């Protein structure tokens, strides 16, 4: 009897995606697929019940993740993924609510919601894809575009100072803050797992190639070239003050886990207050 090699026809993550929605809309060389699969691997390795996960996105390329994952998933309005997710989380406290969106969506039009959800320490996992530009609309500059970078609306180079998102999130009160590039798939997956298990506001910035919107005008090259750039320029510095987590245009990319602290989440604090004032089992 000859040895039978089992041929797997299914990818282990297939059960977490809406196959019928493929092919996806992302460009060749885009990092979003890696970011999404890192998230799905994290869910799989934690053996979480898919019924207990909700994904909320805003608008933009990253916002499309909600449409590809087989969880309860909500593709909302530009900038409003976090407040939508806040409402959903408070209505369904036992669910893990993940916000998957881009830097423009979360830090520009939705910037106010980002800092206030972090301040409240709402138990959400934010996966913020930073590709340094507005990709969906064809490559305009945004709140993370490096000084000097060219985009379709900074033809002479960007003269606005960008946000350091990890520093912003940490300052606003996030209890878990990390930054990885899509080259750091293992670290990214581990971080997403930690964030999913964290009771509080977690923020993971994912540096991701955008060869069409950002790579081409800035002569970075194809997605692969950008990954090579990440490999040559990334420095892992876990535990440093996020304000020192440099993210330069042509130079160093500091990645790592910067914040992992314990602080009662919004719901926990709310319940403690109500229990104390109104007695246990209030409102039952």
């Amino acid at each position: 009897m000859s040895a039978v090699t089992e041929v797997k026809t299914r990818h282990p993550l297939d059960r977490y995606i809406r196959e019928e929605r493929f092919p996806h809309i992302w460009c060749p060389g885009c990092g979003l697929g890696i970011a999404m699969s890192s998230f799905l691997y994290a869910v799989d390795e934690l053996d979480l019940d898919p019924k207990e996960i909700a994904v909320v996105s805003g608008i933009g390329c990253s916002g499309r993740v909600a449409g590809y994952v087989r969880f309860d998933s909500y593709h909302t309005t530009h900038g409003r993924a976090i407040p939508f997710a806040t409402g959903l989380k408070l209505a369904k406290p036992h669910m893990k609510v993940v916000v998957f969106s881009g830097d423009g969506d979360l830090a520009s039009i939705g910037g106010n919601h980002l800092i206030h959800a972090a301040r409240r320490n709402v138990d959400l996992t934010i996966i913020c894809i930073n590709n340094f530009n507005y990709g969906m609309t064809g490559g305009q500059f945004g709140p993370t575009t490096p000084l000097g970078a060219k985009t379709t609306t900074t033809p002479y180079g960007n003269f606005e100072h960008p946000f350091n998102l990890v520093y912003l999130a940490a300052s606003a009160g996030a209890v878990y803050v990390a930054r990885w590039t899509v080259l750091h798939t293992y670290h990214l997956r581990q971080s997403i797992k930690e964030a999913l298990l964290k009771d509080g506001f977690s923020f993971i910035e994912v540096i991701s190639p955008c060869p069409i919107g950002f790579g081409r005008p800035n002569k970075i090259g194809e997605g692969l070239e950008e990954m090579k750039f990440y490999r040559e320029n990334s420095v892992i510095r876990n535990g440093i003050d996020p304000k020192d987590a440099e993210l330069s245009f042509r130079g160093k990319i500091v990645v790592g886990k910067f914040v992992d602290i314990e602080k009662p989440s919004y719901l926990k604090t709310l319940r403690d207050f109500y229990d104390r004032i109104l007695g246990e089992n209030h409102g039952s």
Partner: protein
Amino acid sequence: MKRPAVLTGEYFILGDYACAEGALAAGCRFFAGYPITPATEIAERMSYRMPEVGGIYIQMEDELASMAAIIGASCGGVKAMTATSGPGFSLMLENIGLAVMMEVPCVVVNVQRGAPSTGLPTLVGQGDVMQARWGSHGDYEIVAYAPSSVQEMFDLTVKAFNTAERYRIPVILLADEAVGHLTEKLVIPPEEELTIINRMPPQDPPGEYLPYRADDSLVPPMANAGEGYFVHMTGLTHDERGYPIITGEAHEKLIRRLIQKIRSHADEIIEYEEVELDDADIVVIAYGITARAALRAVRDARAQGIKAGLLRLITVWPFPEKKIQDLAQRVDTFVVAEINQGQIRREVERFVDRPDRVIGVNKLGGDLITPNEILEVLCQPSPK
């Protein structure tokens, strides 16, 4: 002392508080808001009462967030409301469109004040009628109730939730500062006497259920998050699975249904009160606080032998166009009294053959329209 959700009894109470109590009685257990005059008392009451009934009060960073949060909460299966006034309502409009498109039940209270812009924060206005109708971008239908008493701040809030749940739509309670800040009698009935409608749950098991497949009612059953249906909802034009589909054909199909689900039920949704209309030659049309002055003016006119009547709009949207067309066959003149420059008057004119048969009694906000100001018009000779 913890109190129940339905505070059965008689009260001498503020209109804004009555609205909050109506929401709780309807089953609202999530309130997200941002302070704004003259709607703040609704938030204040909710912040006090929600913990008593096991609900959530959250004060968001702005009205954009408040509106997004109530949609999120409702997707989680919890009845949700926000309350605001003109400036905040302007900020909520984009996500009101999202609730229309995703078909998420929720209630938005707008206690109108003098406007535009910051306008008259503490004084009455009725200038957001057309904004409530058309404020979000694109073609859609909306339901808006206009309470004219503290009792109606309660009753119509309950009704707003029922309509929202039944048709899977955002419903607007278009109140005004005078009603919101009015203190008068409120009777809250026993819980068992309240009619409460909840969204229809999926009739098919996961795998077969399609989130946007509707029967003849045009209202699809709704699966909430966490129930194992793995729904996808988007503001993009979508098919019955909820998946984006970017074609004119799909858009036509979806938007046609969203519009028709309201239009085909308009007769069930539309409500108005008729006073002395049977033999009326001249009919006052009014809503909200102004309807109270209109009622007095009609009574005074009758005392002078003028055959006046009142059509009080309880729903301003959908507009009772059939009623207006019917009245136009036998009435000489319509007088539309409202604290704006004629937003409903123009709507009435659309259903009356000659615009000169429609007279407006208008103020810009700040002051109420008095009974005498309406009576003066009722006493003028008919334009016929």
